[in-house]
């Protein structure tokens, strides 16, 4: 796929869902269940946006993007659009953004840390989508 998809657009979300679902189904994914909402502040169009993904028993069950705060998930990450974009381009790690206070995390950190490798995998897969930020 060479055409670039607009970051967080419905097309980008559909592609992200397809890739994540395939990857999680083919790999030896732990049978965990969790949901996460990323809240994007200061987006280029001036609106707040969200990216929501849920995993049920190790399978990607839902993925959606949109305007506003999005679903009230178990884990929430809140930050500026630019920082999320940098993470999505793998220019900085999500961990560095969190440790540097660029992201705010909400949820049970102990459980969240157990799922950190899964979150890294989500990011890595979506970062491979040709994206226009």
């Amino acid at each position, binding site marked *: 796929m060479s055409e670039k998809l607009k970051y967080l657009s419905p097309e980008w979300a559909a592609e992200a869902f397809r890739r994540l679902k395939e990857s999680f189904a083919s790999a030896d994914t732990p049978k965990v269940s969790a949901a996460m909402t990323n809240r994007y502040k200061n987006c280029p169009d001036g609106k707040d946006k969200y990216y929501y993904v849920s995993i049920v028993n190790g399978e990607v069950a839902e993925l959606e993007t949109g305007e506003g705060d999005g679903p009230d998930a178990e884990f929430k990450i809140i930050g500026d659009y630019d920082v999320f974009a940098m993470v999505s381009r793998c220019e900085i790690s999500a961990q560095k953004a969190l440790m540097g206070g660029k992201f705010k995390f909400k949820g049970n*950190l102990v459980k969240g*840390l157990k799922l950190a490798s899964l979150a890294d995998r989500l990011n890595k897969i979506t970062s491979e989508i040709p994206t226009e930020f």
Partner: protein
Amino acid sequence: MSRYLSDKSSPFYIDHPERVKKLQALMREKGIDVYLGSRLRTMSWLTDVFCPWRSYIVIPKEGLPTAFIFVIDAGRVADETWLPEENVLAFAPMGGMDQISIISNFITEECLKGKEGVIGVEAGMGCYLPEGNLTHYEYERFAQELAPCKLVNALDLVDSLQMIKDIGTINRFRHASKIVDFGHERFLKHIQNGGWKGMTETEVAGLCGYYMRQAGSVWEWSFTGGNEIASGYRTGIASCACTPPTDKKLEAGEPLMVDIHAMFKLATGDHSHNYFLGHATPRQLWHAKNFEDIVKETLKTYRAGITPSELSNQMLEFAAKRGFAEYMVPGFEHGIGMLGDEWRIGLNDGPIEYWTNPDHVYRENEMVICAMQYACPEENIGFRYENPILINKNDCEWMSKFPLEIQVIK
């Protein structure tokens, strides 16, 4: 969760939900909407887990508390406490996850549901270094983040509930004292027939720690060096009741003070025993007899209804009649409870804030460490007694049963 935390038939069972309800009843009485605990004694009493790192506990008006633990230890605390896993949260140096942000958000959103309220905090003073009162920075930041909520010092609420010990706590203390006695017995066997020769104070401390660990102690819990060992002149330093061990070698003709500490399910064993090494002079034995007699007299005197000052006066009078009052440090006890509650006796209601009220009237099922220090610096001799005691209606139960007699070890 450990078995003894949920097994009501265990002698060590403590009814934690009941503790929480009693605290919430006091909160209602005092108009406090949320209690933010930060002291080690509060963490121990409410979570029933050793929390060595900075920790906090938030008690809402109703429902279960939530503990906030430094991330490196939160998983273990969640594994060991009686609280459900979701009531143990971690804080870490991450955006929104530092202790001020996560606790403030939790109080505002989960406890107060966005309304204003009164937050009880722990902001007193203590001689005990790991007390855990809020620091100035923490207080200021919480006040800022929780505004317009009002922060009030409310540690008296927890202290008042901790004072009278329940049977599970008492049994844990009894068991911790058994462990300490085992340590003393094994150590005595080790030093008999010249076994002490060549040893240093630090070796004594380590050996006693090893024996107590064999018997199930999880920690030589005292911050005064784990086990406090003194020999020779160090036993008799003026007014000194704190002797972390040194590399001093044990010598013949010297006194040896072995003050050891075991921890069992957050109950703290603490018993000090004294010896002479090799031989003792008649004068040294005179000092020893004085010490033994005043310990016996003190243990005979403790009961519900007496106050620390009455007891001290009676004992100093006893010492004066016998001609050794000048060698007694004029205090006969310190407070004790689950780990972190080690200093003040009774409540913060005395003439000097946060210190023991000398007129505190002992009640049944209070506990203290009966603690006496005999020191004669000019003769390089001293002895220490420490033993957890349970105050009964007409007497007291001393928990460590190791014989008091100061033996001369050949």
